C-alpha cells in the first residue's frame, strides 16, 4: 500500500512537471529572436505589439548594447539571435565593421532622416538609424537646493570641488552611453586635454555603474547629485515624478544614433526582415514616446514627442562616427581610460 501510494504520488508529480514543461515544446509558428538594446519598457512594448499584430512569437532579450555586441562576437560561429534592435550606434558600427551583421536595404530607407541614412551608409547598409538621442546630464533639484550649490550647466562645472563624490557615470567598458560620453569629451577638448579633464572628473565620481541609464535613475532618487546620461533617460526619470533637471552642456555635446542591425547567419532571416521593415514605420516608432523613451525618431513621418529635447537648442558636435565607431580606436581609448583614469583610484 505504502509503496503504491508513493509511486502514485511520484507519478502525479511527474505528470505535473510534464504539464509544466509542455508549452515550451509547443513552439509558435513563426519565431523571432530579438536582442533589444533600449529601455525594458520600450523593448517589451515593441515586442508585444508586434506579437499582437502578426502572431509571430518574439523572444526578446534586453541587454546593454555592449553586452549584445559581446554576445554577437561570442556566438559568431553559431548565431542565436535574428535581429539587434536599438542601443547606441557605435557597437552596431563595430559589429558591421567585423562582419557580424547582414547587409539589408529596407524599402523604408528613403523615408528616414539624414542622420539615419548616413548611419546606414557608414556601415555599408549593415545597420540603420532608428532614433537620435543627445548626451547630457541630470541633477537632483532637491539635493542641489539643500547644499545651496549653483546648478551645473557645462561639462567644466562637473569637475568643480563642490561636486566631489557627487557625480555618477557608467563605465565605458560596459556601457555604450558612457563610451559616447568619453568620445564626446575627447572630440570636444582634444585627446590629451580630455584625459586631464577625465582624471579630474574621476575625483568627483562616486561610482562607475554598469548600465548607462543607471546614473539618471540614481540622480532622480538622490543617490547621486549629478548623473551623466542621455538626456532622454533623464527626462524619462523626471516624467515619473522625480526632482531631476536635465542639462544640455554649454560647450556642446555628443549624441548617439540608436541603430538596428540584422544578425549575420540569423536563423529566421525572413521574419527578421519583416520586423526590420516594420520597426522603421511611424506606427512602430511612436511606441517609444508612449513608453517613456523620448528620443528623436528616425522616420520623417513619425511625430516628434513633445517631451523630446529640442534639438535646435542643443549644441551638437560634429560627432565622428567613423573614427569613434572603429574597433581599434575604441580599444585604444578604453585601454587608456582604464589605466590612466579608472585604475588610478582617487
Amino acid at each position, binding site marked *: 500500500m505504502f*509503496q503504491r501510494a*508513493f509511486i502514485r*504520488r*511520484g507519478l*502525479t*508529480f511527474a505528470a505535473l*512537471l510534464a504539464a*509544466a*514543461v509542455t508549452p*515550451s515544446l509547443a513552439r509558435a509558428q513563426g519565431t523571432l*529572436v530579438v536582442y533589444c538594446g533600449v*529601455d*525594458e*519598457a520600450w523593448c*517589451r512594448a515593441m515586442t*508585444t505589439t508586434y*506579437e*499582437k*499584430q502578426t*502572431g509571430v512569437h518574439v*523572444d526578446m*532579450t534586453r*541587454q546593454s548594447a*555592449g*553586452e549584445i*555586441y*559581446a554576445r554577437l562576437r*561570442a*556566438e559568431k*560561429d*553559431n548565431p*542565436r539571435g535574428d535581429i539587434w534592435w536599438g542601443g547606441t550606434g557605435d*557597437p552596431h558600427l563595430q559589429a558591421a565593421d567585423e562582419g557580424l551583421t547582414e547587409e539589408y536595404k529596407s524599402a523604408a530607407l528613403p523615408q528616414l532622416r539624414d542622420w539615419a541614412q548616413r548611419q546606414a551608409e557608414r556601415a555599408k547598409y549593415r545597420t540603420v538609424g532608428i532614433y537620435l538621442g543627445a548626451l547630457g546630464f541630470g541633477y537632483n533639484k532637491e539635493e542641489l537646493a539643500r547644499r545651496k550649490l549653483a546648478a551645473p550647466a557645462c561639462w567644466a562645472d562637473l569637475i568643480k570641488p563642490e561636486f566631489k*563624490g557627487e557625480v555618477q557615470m557608467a*563605465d*565605458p*567598458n*560596459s556601457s555604450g552611453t558612457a563610451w559616447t560620453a568619453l568620445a564626446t569629451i575627447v572630440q570636444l577638448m582634444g585627446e590629451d586635454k580630455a584625459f586631464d579633464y577625465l582624471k579630474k572628473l574621476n575625483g568627483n565620481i*562616486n*561610482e*562607475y*555603474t*554598469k*548600465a548607462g*541609464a*543607471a546614473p*539618471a*535613475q540614481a540622480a*532622480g*532618487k*538622490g*543617490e*547621486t547629485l549629478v548623473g551623466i546620461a542621455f538626456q532622454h533617460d533623464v527626462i524619462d526619470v523626471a516624467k515619473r*515624478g*522625480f526632482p531631476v533637471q536635465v542639462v544640455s552642456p554649454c560647450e556642446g555635446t555628443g549624441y548617439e544614433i540608436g541603430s538596428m542591425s540584422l544578425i549575420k547567419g540569423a536563423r529566421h532571416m525572413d521574419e527578421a526582415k519583416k520586423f526590420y521593415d516594420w520597426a522603421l514605420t511611424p506606427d512602430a516608432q511612436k511606441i517609444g514616446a508612449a513608453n517613456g523613451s523620448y528620443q528623436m525618431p528616425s522616420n520623417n513621418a513619425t511625430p516628434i514627442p513633445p517631451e523630446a529635447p529640442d534639438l535646435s537648442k542643443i549644441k551638437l558636435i560634429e560627432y565622428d562616427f567613423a573614427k569613434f565607431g572603429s574597433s581599434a580606436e575604441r*580599444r585604444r581609448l*578604453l585601454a587608456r581610460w582604464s589605466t590612466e583614469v579608472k*585604475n*588610478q583610484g*582617487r
Partner: protein
Amino acid sequence: MTRLWLLLGAVGLVLLPWYGLETPAASVLGLRAEAAPALFAGRWWLWPLVVPLGMAFAGWLVPAGVAGLAWMAGQGLVIGLRGWGISWLGLAGAAPAQAAMGWGAAAFALACLMWIAIGLARRGWCRGDVFVLGALLLITGLIALFVAWPVLSILSSAVRDNAGAFTPGALPDKLFNRAIWGLDCLGGGRGCGVAWNTLAQALVVGVLATLLGLAFALVAVRTQLPLKPLVRVLSLLPVITPPFVIGLALILLFGRVGVVTNFLANSFDIPRTRWIYGMPGITIAQLLAFTPIAFLVLLGVLEGVAPSLEEAASTLRAGRWQVFRTVTWPLIRPGLANAFLISFIESLADFANPLMIGGNFNVLSTDIFFAVVGAAHDQSRAAVLSIVLLVFTLTAFLAQRAWIGGRSYTTVTGKGDAGLSAPLPLGLKAACLGVVVPWLVLTVVVYGIILGGGFVKTFGRDYTPTLDYFLTAFSIDRGVGGWFLSGSGWRSFITTMQLAAIATPVTAFLGLLTAWLLSRQDFAGKWAFEFATMMSFAIPGTVVGISYILAFNVPPVELTGTGLIIIISFVFRNMPVGIRAGLANLAQIDRSLDEASMTLRAGTARTLRLVLVPILRPAIVTAMVYGFVRAVTTVSAVIFLVSGEYNLATVYIVGRADVGEYGVALVYSAVLIVTMAAVLVGISAMVGRQRIGRRGTLPAAELATT
C-alpha cells in the same frame, strides 16, 4: 540486457540524427540531410564507428566501448564547425565541417559506456555487478564531460590571447598583474588588487558570520528565551531568497536617500554619505545571507556538547566564565573553524551582492563577469581571474575537508549524558543578546522591504500603495489570439520554473545514486570519484558559467543558448546537496537490509528500488526541495548562460535593479519567495508527508555544509 545496449548503439548510428540537439522529431529518420544518422550523407569520418559496433556484437565489449568513445572524441575535436579544429596537427586538404553532436551521438556514447560496464563486469570487476559498474561509469562520464572538461577549457583559455592564439609566455604577466595583486591601497589612495579585495572581504565576512552565528546559537541553545523558533524560521529564509535582493533592500534602507539615512539626516543632521556602497554594504548583505548557515553549523555543535562535562567543571567550583572558557569553548572550536570556512567560501563565490551594492569595490566574481560582458570582451582575462578564484576556493574547501571533514566532535555518548547545560556567563549573555536582537530586527525589516517594497510607489519617498510594478511584471492581457501573458516577468518566470522543474528530479536521482555508490560500494579510485563529485560545488558560480561558455559554445558539444545548458548547470551545481542528504540517510540504514534482499536473490537494482528508495524518501525530498530552490535562486552560474529564449528570473531581476527599477525587482523577488515557499510545502506534501529527516534541523544543516 546486453542486447539492449547493443541495439542502442546501432540505433545511435543508423537511426537517430547524429548532429543537433534541436532537430525536430520529424527528421529522425533522416528526412533532412543535416539531420541524417551518422552513417549516411557521406560523412566518411563517422564510418569507422562501425568497427566498435561490430566488435561489440562479436563480444569484445570493453575494447569496443573504449574504441568507440576514443574515435568519437578524437574526430569531434579534430573536425570542427568550420574545418580542422586543431591547427597544429597540420592536416592538409579540404577540411570537412561538422556541427555539434546530437541525440544519435549521445545514444552511441551511452551504449559505449554500457558495453564497457558489461565487459568489465564479466571480468569480475565490482563482484560482477553490471548495475554498479554502469552507474559508476555513467556518473564518471557525466562528471568528466560537465565538470572536468569545462574546467580544463578555462585552464587552456588562460594561455591563449583574445584572438585564440596559443601564448603561454603571456600567462605569468596576466596572472601576476598589478590589477590582481597590487598592494597600492596600503601606500596611498589607490585601490588594491582585486585578489586582495576578495580575500579581505571573505575574511571579514567569515569571522563576523561565525561570531554572529555563535551568538545566535548560544541564545538559541543556552538561554530560556522563546527566540528559538523565530531564529529557526529566519535561518531558513536566506535559502529561498534570491541572493541579491538583500543588497537591494540595504540600499533602500541605508543608501544616500535610504529610509534610515533620511531619518538620521532629518532628525540629527547626520550628513548623508554613500558608505553602504562598497565593502560595508557587501559585508552586511553577505552576513544577512550567510549567518544562518554558520548558525546551523554551530547549533549542531553546541547541542552536541555534553552537559555532564560542564557540570563536572562547575562542581569543581569553576565559575560560569571559567566553564565557558575552559570546557565549552574548546569543544566548539572545530565547529567554529567549520562555520568560518563555509562562510569564507560562500563569500568568495558570492556574485550578486557585490554586483548590486559593491560600488567601486571590485571582487573577483564581478571582475570575471565584466571581463566577459564588458566592451573589452577579454575571455582570457576572465579565465585568469577564474583560476585565481578557483585556487582560493579549492584551498579553503580542501582545508575544510582535510581539517574537519566528517569527523565528529560531539561528546554525547550512550551514558552519562544527563544534566543541565551550564548557564552562560552574564556578560556573555548580555553581549549575545545585544547582538542578536538588533540583528533580528534588521532581518525582519529587510524582509519586510523585500516583500512589501514593490507595492508602494517609491520606497522611501512615496508610500502610496500601488499595483503598478506588479502589473508591469505579471499582468495578463487580451490580444488577437485570446488571453496572453503580457507582463514583462512572465516569460523568465515560466522558463525558470520549467527548467528548475526538469532539473530537480535529475539532480535528486544522480545525487542519490552517487551517494549510494559512495556509501555502499567499494571500488578502486573511490576517493578520486568522491573528490570529483564534490568539486562541482567548490567551483564558484561565475567560474562555472564562464567555463560552460568556453567549453560548450562550439562543437563537438555545443549547448550555449539552449535550455539544456541551464538544466545541466543546475544539475551539476546542486547534485552535491543530493549526495549529502543521501549519505546522511544511508548511514542510518544498516547494510543488513541490503544483504537480506540480496540473499533473497534480488539484484542490486531491484534491491535499490524496492528496499532503499522507500526508506530514502526523506533524502529524496530534501534533495528535490533544495535542488529546486537552489536552481531558482542561483544567479552567478546562469547569468552567462541565459539567452533570448531562456531567460531566468534572477537574471531578469538583476537587470531591473541594475537600471534602478527597484519596484519591479522587489515585486518579482517577493513573487519568487512566495512561490518557493509554496513549492517547499507542496513537494513535501506530494512526495510524502513524512518530516524531512529525523531531526528538524537536518536538511538545513545538510545544506549548510555543502
